[in-house]
Each structure stands twice: as structure tokens, then as C-alpha cells.
């Protein structure tokens, strides 16, 4: 990987973080496998996969956004809006599922474009823009359906996308792997990825360096909208229904997965495989607790604790090193410098 010096310095910490996280995932797996006899079965692994695809997709596209120093709170609401529009087009518009899906993807991209234009043209803070569209998208979903309309009875061929297997694994897993692969290449092997990182470190610096900051940022948000629409379609196929409350709260799960995966919320630092591990850690926890016969509330409490542990796990050694380095440079006059 070609990296600037400052990047390699920071990604060293990130690398360590991913190994720690991998161990967490492995420990979770071993623990739940020992307490739940059915936990380790192939069928259950597929369940975990199936249940985490939509949030996982959102987390994948949230990663470059957070690396760029931004955030997108509107993705869960956008998922709801897209699901409803998909259902509306199919049932009332007489579209085939494929045509409805195409239009829905376009809608997702347009909605992402709305976020993008407010954030890049008007240089408004992403947190506020997407807080507004968080309400707006969910509100539109409710307005379209009057809150009450539920779309259901989709054709079997479409439901197969969310409920059947293809080549031995859940159908939607193929899409997830494809998106994950493309996102990994984008983030780690292209100029887009490097630009996003540079913007995350210092947007002004990136601008002065002549990088097309606005255009690159915009593409990241449009991509997020597009993938949120894809997640909406998969969600609809998995549940066999679309309603205005689809995907409520998913943005927070996605952000949790990304941050757990070692991406810095301040931007500049983060990897896609870290996010994948973050998704795995949360998904396995959620599923495993059922096998350990613990109540669902435990999942919330433990996710919170895990997040704090993972964060302080990477930060405490850094603080420690920084303090030691400072002490070595400026030994306190009163106390003798302590031997290691």
C-alpha cells in the first residue's frame, strides 16, 4: 500500500485494533459455541449473515463517510423511504420488481445527492444536514403511505432474494460480498479512497493540495444513498413486506459497527475490513445471546460496553506512550525520572 508517512504511522495503531477485534470476534464465537450447541451450525451462521446484511451494507458505505470526517444519520430513514417507494411502484405503479428496484436505486442516489449537495455546495455540517434529512426521509415515507399502508404479497421470485439460497449461501450474501469487495477496492486501492482519507485528516489541506474535495465527498454520499436503496430492496425481500418504519435506528447500528471497527469518528483513519469485523462482532453478539439464553437487553448493554472497551483499548496505550514520551522530553524537575 502506498502511504504517506503520517498515514502509515496512524494505521499501525489501526492494525493493532483490528487484531484485537478479530480476537474479540473469535472469543465470542468460541464462547457461544461452547454454551449453545446449535450456535456453530452452518444454518445459524447463515442466519447471522442474513440478519446483518442490511445493517452491514449501511456500515460499509458509512465507513468512507466517517473516514472523510462526516456522518450520515439519514441512512436508516432513507432505507424506510426506499422500501416504501419500491412497494408503491410495484403494487400501485404496475412496475415489475426489477423495474421498481431500478427506480428505487435511482431514488436512493438522488436522496444521497440531496445530502451531498447540501454538505458540499453549501458546506454545511453533515451531522445537521443528515439530522434534517433523517426526519425528512422518514416523514416522506409516512406521508406516502399515510403511515398505515403496508406493501406485501411480493412474487416468490423476488422474495428469493431475501429468503432463499443461491450457490449454497443466502442469496443476499452474494450482493453483500460484491459490495464489500468493491468498497474495499475503492477505499484502499483507488485515488477516491486516498482523497477521502486526506479530506478526513484536513479538508482545508486537501483543498489546498488541489484535490477535488467537493466532488469526492459528494460521490461518497451519493454512493451511500444508492446502497441504502439496495439494502431497502433486500430488507423488503427478507421480510416480505415494506412499511414506513423499515430500518428504524439502523443508522446507529451502522455507526456503531464502523466505530467498533476502528474508524476514527474524527476522520482520516479507518479500514473496511475493520468495519467488517465490527459488523461481525455485533451480529455474533446479537445472535449468540439467544443461544446463551440471555435476554435481548443484554445485547444493548454489552454492545455499549464493547464499544467503550474497544475505544479505550486503542486509546489508553497511545495516552501512555504519549505521557512517557513527554516525560522523557521534559523530565519533571522535582521527581527523578522513573526507570521503566
Amino acid at each position, binding site marked *: 500500500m502506498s502511504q504517506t508517512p503520517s498515514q502509515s504511522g496512524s494505521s499501525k495503531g489501526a492494525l493493532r485494533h483490528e487484531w484485537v477485534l478479530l480476537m474479540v470476534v473469535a472469543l465470542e464465537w468460541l464462547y457461544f459455541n461452547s454454551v449453545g450447541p446449535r450456535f456453530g451450525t452452518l444454518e445459524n451462521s447463515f442466519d447471522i449473515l442474513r440478519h446483518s446484511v442490511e445493517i452491514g451494507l449501511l456500515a460499509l458505505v458509512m465507513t468512507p463517510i466517517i473516514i472523510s470526517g462526516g*456522518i450520515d444519520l439519514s441512512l436508516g430513514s432513507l432505507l424506510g423511504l426506499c422500501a416504501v417507494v419500491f412497494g408503491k411502484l410495484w403494487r400501485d405503479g404496475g412496475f415489475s420488481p426489477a423495474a421498481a428496484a431500478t427506480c428505487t436505486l435511482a431514488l436512493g442516489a438522488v436522496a444521497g445527492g440531496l445530502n451531498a449537495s*447540501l454538505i458540499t*455546495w*453549501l*458546506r*454545511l*455540517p453533515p*451531522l*445537521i*444536514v443528515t*439530522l*434534517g*434529512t*433523517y*426526519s*425528512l*426521509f*422518514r*416523514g*416522506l415515507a*409516512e*406521508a406516502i*403511505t*399515510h*403511515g398505515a399502508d403496508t406493501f406485501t404479497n411480493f412474487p416468490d421470485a423476488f422474495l428469493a432474494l431475501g429468503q432463499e439460497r443461491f450457490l449454497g449461501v443466502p442469496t443476499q450474501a452474494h450482493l453483500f460480498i460484491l459490495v464489500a469487495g468493491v468498497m474495499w477496492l475503492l477505499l484502499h486501492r483507488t485515488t477516491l479512497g486516498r482523497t477521502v482519507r486526506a479530506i478526513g485528516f484536513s479538508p482545508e489541506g486537501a483543498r489546498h493540495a488541489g484535490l477535488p474535495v467537493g466532488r469526492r465527498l459528494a460521490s461518497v454520499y451519493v454512493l451511500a444513498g444508492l446502497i441504502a436503496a439496495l439494502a431497502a430492496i433486500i430488507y423488503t425481500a427478507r421480510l416480505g413486506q415494506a412499511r414506513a418504519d423499515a430500518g428504524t435506528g439502523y443508522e*446507529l447500528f451502522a*455507526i*456503531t459497527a464502523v*466505530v467498533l471497527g476502528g474508524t*476514527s*469518528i*474524527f476522520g482520516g483513519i479507518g479500514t473496511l475490513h475493520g468495519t467488517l469485523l465490527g459488523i461481525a462482532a455485533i451480529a455474533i453478539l446479537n445472535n449468540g445471546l439467544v443461544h446463551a439464553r440471555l*435476554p435481548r*437487553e*443484554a*445485547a*444493548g*448493554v454489552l*454492545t*455499549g*460496553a464493547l*464499544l*467503550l472497551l474497544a*475505544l*479505550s483499548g486503542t*486509546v*489508553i496505550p497511545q*495516552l501512555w506512550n504519549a505521557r512517557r514520551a513527554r516525560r522523557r522530553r521534559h523530565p519533571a524537575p522535582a521527581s527523578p525520572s522513573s526507570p521503566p
Partner: protein
Amino acid sequence: MSRHFREISVVAALALVLIGLAFAAPGFFQPQPLLSLVTREAPTLVVASGMALVIICRQIDISVGSQFAVCGVLTGLLASLGWPVATLVPAAIAAGAVLGAVNGTLVAGLQLPSIVVTLATMVTWREALRWWRQGEFVDLPVKLQWLGLSQRTGQWLLVATALMVLVVLALGLRHLAAGRHCYAVGADAEAARLAGLRPRRVTFLAFVLVGALTGLATILNVLQSPQVDPKSGTGLELKTIAAVVVGGVSIAGGRGSLWGVFAGLLLLACVSPALTHLRVEAYWEKAIQGLIILLAVLADGVRMRKTGP
């Protein structure tokens, strides 16, 4: 003009809405129902003041809703054990301050990003409370409501308390050294440190203060109803952040005033009752809330683009 552009524009928007309502739905302005609605928003105002403070320090606290629920249930349980009001108030404030100190320690002590820390504590407190209480309402002693005073006096008292908190904080932020430190730390923590301030201590205290204010807010909530809903405060973080942002506090820290937050909260809070009075179907409400937030920042964005930051 330009310095207070946002405050003025929010107040103008609020005035416009109220004037519109005066023509379209004069029933909105009946004094007693209006007082009741304002009293319902008193706790939110106190929390929003705290939120503004944290955001001015360039941090954020999304765990306030969960803190509100935890403090509310704790206060309710103590009240049903027979604790007198004089001890309930400090107890609630202390409980809030402790929860705030947890956030403060993690953010200021370990230098962790506040949005993630408070995301984690939000989930943890909320789910732990559900695990513990299983969603059961807490019944309060009868004489606790309105402190045993008449309803009207009680309502005025609660509203006055909330306004007093707002005024004290607003003046303190402007004129006290500690208040100026918040702006300094929020604008540039490193510069503040070089100027001899202690940014981490300021940050820590800001989180403790927002916790304490949330605790106080639960008292204002507990006193106006005979039961505590353990789900209370759900969504409070988004409501208060939206009010703060619409009120013109910069999310990048160091800029904004509590007067703007006050106007922002009133603007957002009157949407729902206004729609009821205008007989608009409820399913438009979220979209309208979203539009207000977007328009508020849009105005700023367009202005900045024209004049430069």
C-alpha cells in the same frame, strides 16, 4: 445584524408561525392550554440548555434521553419510598451529575470522541433500565404533584424554574470567566490550552453540568404528573440537538447563544400542536420537522456562501 443573523432569523420564523396561527387557528392562544403545553416543554428547555453548553464546547451528548429516563425512575422510586421533595431535588441532580461524570471521564480523561462515548452510554443506560424495571410505571405519592400547590401555581413555578436556568446559564456563558472558557475551548482547544486554560477540565465539567441539568429536568417532569414512564426521554437527544442547531449554535463549537436555542426550541415544539390546531394529518409531522431543520441551516449556508465565513 450579521453576528446575530441566526437568532434573528429564528425569532422571525417563530413570529411568522405564531402570526399565521393567530389568523388560521386563534384557538391555539387560549391561555390555560398554552400554559400546559409550555409546562410540558419546560424539562426539554433545561436539557436543551445543557446540550447547547456541551455543543459550544465542541462536544455532543446523545445520552441525555437515557439519563433522563434513569434519573426519572430513580427519583420516582425515592419519592415512593417517602423521601421529601427537599431531598429529591439534590438526589436527582446528583444522579444526573454522576451519569454525566461517566461521560466526562471517558471523553475528557481518556480523550475518546464524545459522540461515540455517549452513543455507548445511551444504549447501555436505556437497556439496563429496561432490564431492571421491565417497563413498569413508577407511581408517585399524590401530594408530590405540583408540590401540593394548585395546578396553575405549580405550572408557573416549573416554567419559571426552567426560564431561570436558561437565563442564569445564558448570562453565565456570556459574562462569567467559566462561560468564556467554554467558547474558548470549543473554538480551539489547543489555543485555549496555550492561553493557560485547562480544556479537559472544562470539557469534563460541561458533561457533569449537562447531566446535572438533565437530573433537574426530570424533577420538572416528575412534579407535573403522578406517574413516571420508564421510557420517558426517548428521542430527547434528537429533539434537543435539533433545537440547539436550529437556534444557531455551531456544531463545530465555539459559537452560538442560549437565546437562539430558546427560540429554536419554541419553533420546533410548536410544530406538533400547531398541526393539531390546523387539522393537518399527523403523517406530515416528521417531514415538516425535517424541513424546518434543513431550512434553518440552509439559510446559514446560503448566507455564508455569499459573504464568506
